[in-house]
């Protein structure tokens, strides 16, 4: 027996210790030259398995603020023992997570201590796909990222391509884009109001929100042919002109909405239960929001009047008047109120667009970039060739790299585009607002109740297609 034991050989403890020592001493150096895969756990680790420095640093698992920025290092309940806390999973399949968001939450009783969003369940490699699609096809790809504001995605991609092409759009194309973007902002915010209401226990709001959103989507269907994923805004302009009676359609939406918004006000804004449920919940400060790269309503709820439409105008936003809505506290209620009032501001902008909509081309007249009208194809050989070349080979874009950003309903939506002079992007990266905004969750949820966690998730309005791409 002893000889067998000896021949198997008990594991020598010395190399193990040496390994541990190496990792503990130089975790960074360990990465250099390491294997091409990392099996590091993405999950929230137990309190006992997390080293004290990290525990001290982390206010939530994702936000490990540097010491100087952290609110109060003594506030981090480092003394809490592992027996008193419990890590639970929320999602990825949970109705309140708006898709496939998974949160690992450490609870002490009902109080949230640490949170870590675990994402990637909807990752479909769209940035890689974009490298294999021509610029003409790219819109079909990006529109599927943030599926609640598809037109914003198309617009930022088209604007990046146009910047590389150095072309200027005819005014009508610009204003059509603005019209569609603002209507899309309305529909996206209505969707937020609906889901936010549902998450906080008001199922009537869910029906109201979806009902009003459907008005906008019906208009989109008339213009683009599809309710979602339109591929309507394309490099060089838009895919088609507005239908003849578009003005009446838009006006009928604008007539209905203000009254309905008043109803939401009655239902929520002045209602004591709603206010108790949302006021002072999920607070984030201005400094934290900026440090965490949060944009959109989350940043504005902290009192920072940062809206790319006003601060770095694109399209023709410098020619319309609107107010940037800001909050004061940075809580769930502020984020709700900001979105509700942004719908009102968008209505104001759409009214101005209706007055200012110029006549003319809805896309640039350059057969190398935009297809010739369908009627021309029957009578002109040249038009037929252009049409054929455009949809088989696409158009080439001069080599270069450019970053363009617009204000989507969720914040700064950016497109970083690298062209190598061919017909397909060499690299296309979308700066997704939801992706960055999710980092705020651990901060907002810390110290709150697990019941409020649902309200906080809802108030960040994440779109998981945008997060995971």
């Amino acid at each position, binding site marked *: 027996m002893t000889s067998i034991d000896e021949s198997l050989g008990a594991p020598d403890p010395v190399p193990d210790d040496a390994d541990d020592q190496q990792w503990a001493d130089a975790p960074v150096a360990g990465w250099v030259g390491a294997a091409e895969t990392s099996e590091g756990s993405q999950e929230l680790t137990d309190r006992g398995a997390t080293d004290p420095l990290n525990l001290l640093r982390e206010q939530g698992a*994702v936000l490990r603020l540097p010491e100087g920025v952290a609110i109060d290092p003594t506030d981090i309940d480092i003394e809490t023992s592992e027996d008193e806390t419990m890590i639970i999973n929320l999602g990825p399949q949970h109705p309140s997570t708006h898709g496939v968001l998974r949160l690992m939450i450490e609870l002490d009783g009902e109080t949230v201590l640490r949170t870590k969003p675990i994402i990637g369940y909807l990752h479909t490699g769209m940035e890689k796909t974009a490298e294999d699609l021509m610029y003409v096809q790219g819109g079909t790809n990006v529109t599927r990222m943030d599926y609640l504001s598809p037109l914003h995605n198309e617009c930022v991609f088209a604007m990046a391509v146009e910047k590389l092409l150095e072309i200027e759009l005819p005014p009508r194309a610009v204003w059509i884009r603005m019209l569609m973007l603002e209507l899309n902002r309305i529909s996206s915010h209505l969707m937020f109001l609906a889901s936010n209401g549902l998450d906080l226990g008001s199922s009537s709001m869910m029906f109201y929100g979806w009902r009003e959103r459907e008005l906008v989507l019906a208009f989109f269907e008339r213009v683009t042919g599809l309710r979602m994923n339109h591929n309507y805004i394309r490099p060089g302009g838009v895919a088609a002109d507005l239908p003849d009676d578009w003005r009446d359609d838009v006006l009928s939406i604008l007539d209905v909405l203000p009254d309905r918004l008043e109803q939401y006000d009655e239902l929520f804004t002045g209602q004591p239960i709603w206010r108790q449920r949302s006021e002072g919940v999920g607070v984030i400060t201005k400094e934290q929001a900026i440090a965490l790269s949060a944009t959109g309503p989350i940043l504005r709820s902290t009192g920072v009047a940062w809206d790319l439409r006003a601060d770095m105008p694109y399209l023709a936003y410098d020619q319309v008047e609107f107010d940037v809505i800001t909050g004061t506290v940075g809580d769930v209620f502020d984020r709700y109120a900001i979105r509700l009032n942004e719908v009102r501001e968008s209505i104001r902008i759409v009214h101005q667009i209706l007055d200012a909509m110029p006549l003319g081309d809805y896309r640039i007249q350059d057969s190398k970039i935009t297809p010739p009208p369908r009627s021309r194809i029957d009578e002109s050989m040249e038009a037929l060739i252009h049409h054929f070349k455009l949809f088989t080979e696409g158009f080439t874009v001069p080599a270069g790299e450019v970053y363009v950003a617009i204000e989507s309903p969720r914040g700064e939506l950016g497109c970083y585009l690298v062209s190598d002079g061919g017909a397909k992007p060499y690299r296309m990266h979308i700066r997704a607002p939801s992706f960055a905004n999710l980092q705020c969750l651990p901060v907002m949820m810390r110290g709150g109740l697990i019941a409020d966690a649902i309200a906080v998730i809802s108030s960040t309005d994440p779109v998981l297609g945008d997060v995971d791409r």
Partner: protein
Amino acid sequence: MTTTSPDVEPAPEATEAPAPSRHAGALVTVTYGQEVLHPSLDAYLETIAALQAEGFDMCVDVTGVDYLERPARHLPPGVLPERFEVVVNLVAMDPPRRVRVRVQVPEPEATVASLWNLYPGTEAMEREVFDLMGIRFAGHPDLTRILMPEDWEGHPLRKDYAIGHVPVQFKAAPPTR
């Protein structure tokens, strides 16, 4: 937009100011009206810190590009192209302005300093770049995959990572069973 032939060498990027100027210790180019800084790998962190001190409060984006198939690109004289590039977008709010920082990252180490100590919001973005591009960030507190599964091998956005195709069958394919 004068040619559709892919063989013709593309024209260089539109730039102004051929005289090399410097901002925050890094060479500056202007591309399509956008200011781009090109710090060296060693000076990268200092450049970003200098920009932060200058008022660039928010880091909106960190991304990476793999220039494996296209080593030639527009860079100011003195900056040598490497395989990888990390691209950082910073925003200053008052007055509103943007700056883009492009740093060349040589392989095989493909390691660059993490911005996490300056901008905590870069944590998820740097994890994404690591996950999809395989660029490592020294000093990052939690450099794990974020979009791909934990046990995934390889980094999908690298140019030598095949996209995968299902071959199109023009004749009747043999039955699978």
